[in-house]
Every structure is written in C-alpha cells, then in structure tokens.
C-alpha cells in the first residue's frame, strides 16, 4: 500500500504541458507579463547560461548543448526564453560583481517558486563569499527551525545556482552535503575557490567544535564568519555547542548569528 501511495504522489508531480500558461492567459485576454531572455556568460564556475527578465535574474545553468537551456527553462518555469548574444552591460557587471562577492545589487525573479523556497533562497543569497552556513541555520533564520530537510530540497531545486550560493549551505556535522550542480566534489571545489577550507571544517566538526569564540571579546561565531577568522590563535577558543558557549560567558556574534537569539 505504501508503494502505491508513493506512486500516487508521483502522479501529483506531473507537469502541465509546455505553453499551457500562455494558452490560458490568451484565452482570458491577458498578455504574459514576464518575458525572459538569456545569454552565455563566462564565469569562474565555467560557462553558464543566465536568464533574466524585468524582475531580475530568473535562471542560471551550466551551459550545455544547443537548445538544452531553452528546453530546461520551459519545463522548469513553464514559459519560453529567447537567446541573445550578450548580457546587457550593467547586468554583466552586476553578475561578475556578485560572483566576486563585491556586488549585492543583483535582483532575482523567484516568482515561479513557493514562499518557503523563496525565503530559503533569499536567505541563502545573504551568505557572504568565503563563508558557509548550515541547513539548520537557514531553517532557523527564516523562522522554520524544524524544516531543515525542506531547506535541503529547496536548495536542491535552486533555479539560480552560483548566483544564489546554495553551495555555501552545508551540513551541521561538517560534511559538505549534496549539490545539485555537480555533486559534493563540485561543491568542495567551488567553496575552496571562494576561500573556504573544507578540510578544516570537517576536522573541526569531527572534533565536536561547532563554534569559535574569542577570549578577548567573548563573542562566538560560526567557524567561517569573517569575525571568527580575525581572532588571533592564542585568543581562539573552540566551543562544542550553545550551552558551552553561553556557560562560558560567550555572546553570539550579531553578524553570523550562530544560534537563535
């Protein structure tokens, strides 16, 4: 019976045919509002296709064979996308600035997603380059502390990888976790390129050190927080959990917000 019920849920995942929304809107006399275009862009992640519309970036995907992006986009977002040669200048600058971690003005069109997925992705977009947070951190920050697995699914479904840095969300136990754009190895490579020492994080986690505190300021952080990295070695203290931190008189960092306030 359980298998059958799983199969029935699959039936609920069937997608409407391509162009369905356009046909419905045409039938009631509404012109579609969004119109997406895409171009090929070379980034430090490799060559990717970037799609955008008047609301912002709508999709990013590693460049594949001709026509593949259009097919994927339409099946994923339910509307067509047209190819152009290059990204508009301003957008191109914002995209490369965002990848370099210098520009945070990039806007995203997440309207095809549910509110939970939007919250997850917008929160993830706040994680600075060179840092990581856990799935549990994202869940807590968006006010859904128990939805840790759902955060994982939402990130696995991220239509805008690289620019919305789902690779910066890792497991609480120090393992990097899954990555839909190329698996754990690709995730590690991208993080190391961004200056995250994944091996060090694993060692910390295997030693049960969840947070790093400063003996001088008595503030504790997640290990990759830029504040934590400024703590000089003699002043650095490794903390197992919130209890140990608070018990030792440490306050949570207001920048990386390591625990619920």
């Amino acid at each position, binding site marked *: *019976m359980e298998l*059958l*019920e*799983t*199969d*029935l*849920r*699959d*039936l*609920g*995942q*069937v*997608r*409407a*045919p*391509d162009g*369905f*929304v356009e*046909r*419905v*809107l045409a*039938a*009631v006399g*509404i012109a*579609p*509002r969004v119109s997406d275009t895409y171009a090929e862009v070379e980034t430090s992640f490799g060559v990717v296709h970037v799609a955008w519309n008047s609301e912002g970036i709508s999709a990013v995907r590693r460049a594949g064979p001709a026509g593949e992006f259009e097919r994927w986009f339409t*099946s*994923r977002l*339910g509307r067509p996308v047209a190819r152009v040669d290059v990204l508009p200048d301003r957008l191109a600058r914002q995209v490369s600035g965002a990848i370099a971690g210098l520009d945070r003005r990039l806007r995203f069109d997440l*309207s*095809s997603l*549910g*509110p*939970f997925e939007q919250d997850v992705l917008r929160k993830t977009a706040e994680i600075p380059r060179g840092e990581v947070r856990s799935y549990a951190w994202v869940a807590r920050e968006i006010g859904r502390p128990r939805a840790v697995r759902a955060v994982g*699914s939402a990130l*696995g*479904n991220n239509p805008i990888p690289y620019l919305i840095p789902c690779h910066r969300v890792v497991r609480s136990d120090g393992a990097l976790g*899954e990555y*839909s754009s190329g698996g754990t190895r690709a995730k590690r490579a991208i993080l190391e390129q961004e200056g995250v020492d994944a091996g060090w994080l694993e060692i910390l986690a295997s030693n049960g050190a969840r947070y790093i505190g400063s003996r001088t300021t008595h503030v504790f952080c997640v290990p990759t927080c830029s504040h934590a990295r400024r703590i000089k070695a003699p002043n650095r203290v490794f903390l197992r959990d919130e209890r140990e931190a608070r018990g030792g008189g440490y306050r949570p960092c207001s920048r990386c917000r390591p625990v619920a306030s």
Partner: protein
Amino acid sequence: MGAERDEDLTRALAADPVGGFESMVYAYQHRLYAFSLAMSGEPMDAEEIAQDTFMRAHAALSRYPRERIAVLRLNAWLHQIALNVFRNRARKRKLRVVPLDPDLPVADSAAGPERQVLSRAALRELANLVSGLPEHQRAAVVLRCVQGMTYAEVATLLGQPEGTIKASVHRGLQTLKRRAGALSEVS
C-alpha cells in the same frame, strides 16, 4: 501548495486582478493539471479541464468583490471548480478510453533528488488505473493521495463526513492495489 502561498496569491488577486491571475495560473498550473489528469486519465482531457478551470476562475474572480477574493481558500476553491468542470464533462459524454499520450511530461526535479520518480509509462498506467475508479472513490483518492490534501480538507470539498472519505480512500486504494497487481502479473 501552502496556505501562506495562497494568502500571497489572494492578496495579489485582490490588489491587481491581472497580475494576480497570472501569478495564480503559474502557481497552480501543474497542480490542477495533475488533478485533471488523475481524474480523467487522459492528457487531452486533462489540459482542457485545467484550462476550463482557470477560465471559470477568471470569470468568477471578475464578479467577486475584493473582500471576498481576499478570504478565498484558493487551493480548495480551484479544486472545487476543477471537480465541477470534470463532472460536467463526464455527464455530457461518457469519457472515452484513449491510450495516453506517450509524451506525458513529468517533473524531472520537483520530486527531490532522493528518489527516482516513476517512469512515464508507469505513470500513464497509474493515471489510467485511477481514472477507472468509481467517481466518489476516485475524487477522494486523487484529492488525498495525489494532491496531498488532508482528510478534513477533502471532506469539506466533497461535502461528506470525514469517515466516509476515509472509507472511500481506503476502498479506492485497495481496488487500485488489486488492479495494479493483476496488471503486473499479466505483463
């Protein structure tokens, strides 16, 4: 589809009927298509039922005052319309049994990475099986097991006591299991 999402959509519908309707169609297209497919067992019918549902919803929304739109329970409301569309069609003509479109589109990623989604052929078979259930069982099974509504929601939507719905779902699932078993023995 969460209740929060519905609230966003009804707010958008009340504030901006055109943009709000478009957002609603984007948000509900797959869900209503899946419902229509499971009910009718036939992709051509499914698309017509789903499209008809949105058109009726559009007509209704243009008549409703804002206050009424703002408190609509969208998921239940749209399924109710879809169910009516389906019943009207079924009444007008006995739905013919046609082989399913081999190109039935299936979500590639929406089901999550953990589990392999049922193959297209298997889904076609399943939709056919479901659409062969007696109507009262079918609606209950589809709303509960395909669309993931709670028993309470299904009971309200179908206007029957929760116990009756549970019995219908149970019996429907048993029938499906029996027929699926018979099918796999044959093949």
